[in-house]
């Protein structure tokens, strides 16, 4: 074994005497330094059970770091203090700490010592990530209904709670090195794969055997919404991931009773075992943070939540979670917007996000939300410190930054007794820097981990700057000045002509220019030695004429740093946050106002019918009065002369504002999934639909399976968060579907596995589901709670209501009969293009209908669809609505309703009711919306023209008395979008000029969903071409 280069041949007593010399030597040995130190540490911590090949060399390593500025933690700094470590642990810290006799003394004058950082979110030493699969499997492959994991584990492959990071951990020196270089000493590592990811292990970054670096085995349990490498179909959507997590909590609880029917299930066993650990959730997005927190609330778990970088957009909501956050510092790249035609594709929201991401940590601090920082998500760990400095520039305090890297994670990990500050008894994990840790020019010299020294940078350990006199053997002396930074020196001679200096270890090369044109040079080569604390330089060289000479140099005046020489950085300027975070978002949310709409044609949808020249008074979000010549009082008066006022449009069938998947179509029954979990308030289609007079939308699960997910009615309160978008006190609904989609007729030849493949099978899916639900309801109190069956029981108990996607008369009839048999009622048949054939039967059942105005011919089950369908059903006595199922058409639902006037001769007022009052009736909210009546919600639209006309434009759209869309205000928003885009494009181009790496100007993908995946019904969108996969 190689001897320690630091102490070889020197007794401890000599050590003290020669300390300056030793340090200098250490620096000089830079080539070998790292390896040497590594070995030094290893020897000190050699394990007892491991045999030694050669002569054993037991040693207690003791070091004293003197005259340093020691930052014990973010709150306590000691000047000119000493840190003593022994055997990998801190033994003393303080100004007067005694230096043990056997200590190697390292003079740290002018240097700073900080506790090494802790990264609480790492995959250090974990097996390489498995290839990521999208949607579980390759396109067209047969479905995988169950887990492929072998062994006594659970049914779902994305639940990997049995994985323990400690068992798959294997130290990775190159990764450790990159983390140490950024100041880290300890990380919490876990396998980042799956929805439940098992436990995390706390390890140090020392390059020793794993036996010594593991600080604690099972520290934490990890979760996410991403199924990762799981090839199983379920879950395919975000709402499916949420449902799966919820069901796991219930199943694990139930498993505690050792149910015989389950046998041994190690996934559930581990899930239970892990509950006592720190629970960490990788949310990765602001809305997902809230989704995760909600799951936690339901099951009494407070997660530590890993953020995604956009949480600054919703700080009050983040604070309300009461969670501690883990913030990554990966900032999006600027995009190359030089080409104006490409710049068009970059959304303002993306540009603003680029500009504002560095404010994230600062805004958390400002809001007093506890957080840690992580290197996770960085493309290159090396960018961590630079990005952190940027966060500081954008408002994060240095004190908070240090806390977030030391004390906060250490405390969360219940390891503050061992790491996170510089106190006696803790691990000797610390970094030695040239100055305050987060300052721009500060150099990290060394990172010590468990008492092992890792040299990060030698250059500049000793500051050689100052004025020197160089005495030349044949030509007198030359005064020179050595300047620059300690790590990067420069030299000028007395005439201020720049020369050159290169220090490599102990060796030095100097070039002195005696003429400005560099034509005359004195070239010197020599060594720097330290004698009795004085730096002496000497060597040989050649003069201007090439004649040999010898030389010596002595320091005449040491360097004195100029006070405040560092340029003051300009405070960064950035734009405002919009609510929601979209080009059309508001800087401040619009508020409810009292309004009097005067002298309009008012379509009441009540027995009063259409009132000419009428007034409508809105107070506190409700319709206060309808009549003529009403007194305005304090209300703002809007002139409705020549205009039409109608109730807001309710789109009975919509898929806007949904995040990551409208279908959990991987099983035939998925009543456990809920659109309510995945409402996306940022969808610009909310705003676009307001511009078409829509005030409420019924967000439905797709139609890929017979019993789909639970739906959510929202009001289009543009700018509100998901909870506030939801229609309050609403009866729950659920989506069912029949026909080609659920039997996968148009899914390709390989999709012939999932039951059902025929309309016969669809009936059996229903029979099976409701039979199970009834048995489940009858079962005793200790039954396994099943979210899927809970929803079905709600249907049987008339607490949840059915909207059923359906086309042909046979299947409609079948569902009616199934309802009779199992005791459920279908509230609404949606699409229902052959409803006109069985309208009498639907009426007898008490079902309503929500249909398209004129779609047909896009698939086999719609060949008999007719545009008179709505009229016939209405005339037979059904409650009939016209819906969109389409983000584009939803903006013209009034005109879609008008088509029944054209094709079926429907009365105009009846036609308007099909997109206002009738869907409200179908959704059990006609007591609150759908007509203009005193006491109802003030959800109103002021139209420029007859509301059924192609020429009508919604001029103002109001929800609960708040005007969310107004044509004049829309013009201002457009102007703002254009100005803000222009500003940010300029800023990005500035970054390009500075040479910053640029990303491609790619559009962000809008999520546009329909029930029908086929093209024909829905308008083609340019982005369809770009994102076809």
């Amino acid at each position, binding site marked *: 074994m190689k001897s320690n280069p630091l102490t070889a041949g020197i007794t401890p007593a000599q050590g003290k005497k020669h300390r300056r010399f030793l340090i200098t030597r250490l620096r000089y040995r830079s080539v070998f330094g790292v390896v040497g130190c590594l070995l030094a540490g290893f020897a000190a911590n050699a394990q007892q059970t491991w045999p030694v090949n050669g002569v054993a060399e037991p040693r207690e390593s003791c070091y004293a770091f003197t005259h340093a500025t020691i930052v014990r933690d973010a709150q306590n700094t000691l000047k000119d203090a000493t840190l003593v470590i022994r055997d990998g642990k801190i033994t003393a810290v303080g100004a007067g700490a005694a230096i043990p006799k056997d200590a190697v003394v390292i003079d740290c004058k002018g240097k700073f010592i900080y506790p090494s950082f802790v990264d609480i979110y790492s995959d250090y030493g974990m097996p390489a990530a498995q290839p990521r699969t999208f949607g579980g499997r390759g396109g067209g492959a047969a479905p995988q209904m169950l887990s492929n994991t072998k062994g006594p584990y659970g049914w779902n492959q994305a639940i990997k709670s049995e994985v323990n990071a400690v068992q798959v951990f294997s130290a990775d020196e190159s990764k450790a090195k990159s983390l140490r270089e950024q100041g880290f000493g300890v990380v919490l590592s876990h396998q980042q794969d799956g929805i439940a990811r098992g436990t995390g292990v706390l390890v140090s970054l020392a390059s020793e055997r794993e036996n010594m670096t593991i600080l604690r085995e099972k520290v934490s349990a990890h979760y996410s919404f991403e199924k990762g490498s799981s090839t199983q179909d379920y879950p395919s959507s975000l709402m499916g991931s949420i449902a799966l997590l919820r069901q796991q909590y219930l199943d694990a609880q139930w498993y505690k009773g050792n149910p015989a029917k389950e046998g041994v299930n190690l996934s559930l066993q581990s899930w239970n075992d892990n509950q006592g650990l720190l629970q960490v959730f990788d949310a990765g997005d602001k809305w997902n943070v809230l989704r995760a927190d909600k799951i936690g609330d339901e099951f009494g778990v407070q997660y530590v939540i890993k953020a995604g970088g956009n949480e600054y957009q919703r700080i009050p909501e983040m604070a309300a979670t009461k969670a501690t956050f883990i913030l990554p510092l990966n900032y999006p790249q600027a995009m190359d917007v030089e080409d104006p035609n490409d710049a068009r594709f970059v959304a303002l929201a993306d540009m603003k996000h680029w500009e504002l991401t560095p404010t994230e940590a600062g805004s958390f601090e400002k809001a007093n939300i506890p957080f840690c920082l992580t290197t996770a998500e960085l493309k290159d760990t090396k960018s961590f410190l630079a990005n952190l400095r940027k966060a500081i520039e954008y408002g994060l305090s240095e004190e908070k930054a240090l806390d977030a890297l030391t004390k906060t994670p250490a405390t969360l990990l219940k390891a503050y007794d061992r790491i996170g500050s510089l106190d006696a008894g803790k691990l000797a994990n610390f970094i030695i820097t040239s100055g305050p840790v987060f300052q721009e020019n500060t150099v990290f010299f060394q990172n010590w981990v468990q008492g092992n020294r890792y040299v990060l940078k030698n250059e500049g350990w000793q500051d050689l700057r100052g004025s020197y006199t160089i005495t030349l053997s044949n030509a007198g002396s030359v005064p020179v000045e050595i300047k620059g930074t300690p790590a990067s020196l420069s030299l000028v001679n007395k005439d201020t002509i720049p020369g050159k200096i290169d220090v490599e270890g102990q060796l030095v090369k100097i070039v002195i220019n005696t003429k400005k044109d560099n034509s005359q040079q004195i070239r010197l080569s020599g060594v720097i030695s330290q004698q009795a604390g004085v730096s002496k330089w000497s060597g040989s060289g050649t003069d201007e004429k090439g004649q040999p000479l010898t030389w010596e140099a002595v320091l005449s005046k040491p360097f004195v740093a100029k006070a405040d020489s560092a340029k003051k950085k300009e405070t960064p300027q950035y734009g405002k946050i919009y609510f929601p975070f979209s080009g059309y978002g508001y800087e401040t949310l619009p508020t409810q106002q009292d309004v009097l709409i005067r002298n309009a044609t008012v379509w009441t949808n009540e027995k009063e019918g259409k009132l000419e020249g009428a007034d409508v008074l809105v107070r506190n979000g409700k319709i206060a009065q309808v009549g003529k010549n009403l007194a305005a009082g304090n209300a703002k008066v809007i002139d409705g002369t020549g205009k039409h006022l109608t109730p807001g449009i309710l789109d009975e069938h919509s898929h806007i504002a949904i995040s990551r998947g409208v279908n959990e179509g991987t099983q035939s029954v998925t009543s456990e999934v809920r659109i309510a979990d995945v409402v996306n308030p940022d969808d610009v289609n909310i705003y676009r639909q307001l511009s078409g007079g829509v005030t409420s939308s019924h967000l439905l699960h797709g139609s890929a399976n017979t019993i789909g997910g639970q739906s959510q009615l929202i009001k289009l309160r543009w700018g509100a968060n998901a909870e506030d978008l939801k229609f309050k006190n609403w009866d729950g609904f659920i989506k069912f579907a029949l026909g080609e989609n659920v039997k996968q007729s148009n899914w390709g030849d390989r999709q012939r596995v999932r039951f059902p493949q025929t309309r016969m099978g669809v009936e059996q899916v229903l029979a099976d589901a409701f039979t199970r639900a009834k048995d489940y309801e009858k079962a005793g109190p200790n039954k396994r709670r099943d979210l899927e069956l809970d929803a079905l029981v709600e249907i049987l108990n008339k607490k949840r209501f059915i909207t059923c996607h359906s086309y042909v008369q046979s299947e409609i009839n079948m569902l009616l009969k199934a309802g009779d048999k199992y005791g459920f009622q279908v509230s609404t048949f949606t699409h229902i293009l052959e409803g006109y054939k069985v309208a009498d039967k639907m009426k007898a059942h008490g079902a309503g209908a929500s249909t398209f105005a004129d779609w047909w011919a896009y698939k086999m089950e719609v060949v008999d669809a007719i545009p008179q369908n709505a009229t*016939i059903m209405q005339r037979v006595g059904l409650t009939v609505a016209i819906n969109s199922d389409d983000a584009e*058409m939803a903006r013209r639902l009034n005109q879609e309703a008008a088509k029944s006037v054209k094709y079926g001769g429907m009365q105009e007022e009846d036609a308007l009711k099909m997109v206002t009052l009738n869907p409200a009736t179908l959704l059990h909210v006609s007591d609150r919306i759908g007509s203009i009546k005193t006491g109802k919600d003030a959800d109103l639209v002021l139209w420029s023209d007859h509301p059924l006309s192609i020429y009508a434009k919604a001029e103002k759209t109001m929800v609960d008395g708040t005007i969310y869309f107004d044509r004049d205000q829309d013009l201002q928003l457009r102007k703002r979008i254009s100005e803000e885009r222009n500003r940010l494009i300029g800023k990005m181009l500035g970054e390009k000029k500075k040479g910053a790496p640029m990303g491609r100007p790619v559009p962000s993908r809008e999520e546009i969903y329909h029930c029908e995946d*086929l093209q024909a019904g829905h308008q083609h969108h340019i982005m369809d071409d770009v994102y076809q996969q």
Partner: protein
Amino acid sequence: MQKTFIYILGLSLCSTALRAQETVYPAKPQQGLVFLKNATIHVGNGQVIQNGTIGFNNGKIMAVGANVAIPADDVKVFDVNGQHVYPGLIAPESNLGLTEVESVRATNDYEEVGEINPSVRSIVSYNTDSKVIATLRTNGILLAHVVPQGGLVTGSSSVVQLDAWNWEDAAYKTDNGIHFFMPRLMPRANPFGGAAAGPATDAVKEAMEKVASVKSFLRAAQAYNTAAQHAEVNLKYAAVKGLFDKSQKLFIHADLVKELIVAADFAKELDIDVVIVGGTDAWMITDVLKKYNIPVILSQPHSLPVMADDDVDQPYKTPAQLQKAGVLFCISNEGFWQQRNLPFNAGTAGAYGMTKEEALSSVTLNAAKILGIDDKTGSLEVGKDANIVVSTGDILDMKSSVITRAYIQGREVSLEDKHKQLYERYKYKYDLK
């Protein structure tokens, strides 16, 4: 003796017998003179004639105006009683007749395999017995431009009239254009994550290579077609001969600005007539389109804006912007059955900055000009084919447009369709009147 027959339109409607679709016959050639009087005549060129009369003979319009003398002869005269008379609407881009049920593969004949297929002809698979066709006539659409898809150069299109026994009868202008579907010139994110990272391959570069392959095909074809004799016949080259003598146009399907600039370059470089189909972003480069006389068959206004930051009503007002800039354009609608909404797309344009008559031109005369059939149709002018629609109200507004009568080449065509028949069947079931 006065032999003039006077019909009141309402009555003739009631007399329509219920017939199954299979017995809805194409009309026989026009026999004798027909006059429609007391009409609000929308000529299609912007002109409106109140209380006008239009007369036609042998399939051609012989008189239009406020003071048309109706000969006291063997003529049919219909008093339309203030109803609106329009030129037959033209669907300028459709796969009508090439598909019947979109999800059923056996019914789909609009998409051939291969990248460069100029010799493929849509007309030969145009199915006059499609049940969809009648549902378009009943909304006033009397002509359609039937376009093949699939690959880059997809073949030649033809214009058909919508009342025929077979495709030969239906052909109104055969092989009038060659179609090139330009690949998207839009940077795109790596589908496997990292929005800003960019994929290993550059989609725009790949797309431009395809564009170059089409251009080099056309150059080679141009050279080929200058020689009179060939040892071996190249059907693909021969199929595009008309581009170079300008008897055919090159219809380039393109939407984004860069695509449109590249399309304009085809016109310049090859000296051929280019028409843009799609042209979603045409409003941004009207100067270029005008400068090179490139007309646009505009994608339907009833579309979502391309980007989240776009004006929410951008697709609605694009027609008005093109109109104002002086670019020749017409309005299209996607698909086949959807064509019945073509008039309402024009109506929306009328609500967002165009006059109603300009909006009408965008589905009649301008479409005819762009398709090269304006010598025969597109407006109600003397000498043109009597392609005429009568509506109770504004044909562009679903609130008021009920088509009461339609003529193609002077033949009164049936306004029966499958939907009306099913409607009657179930009115009968429920005893509804």
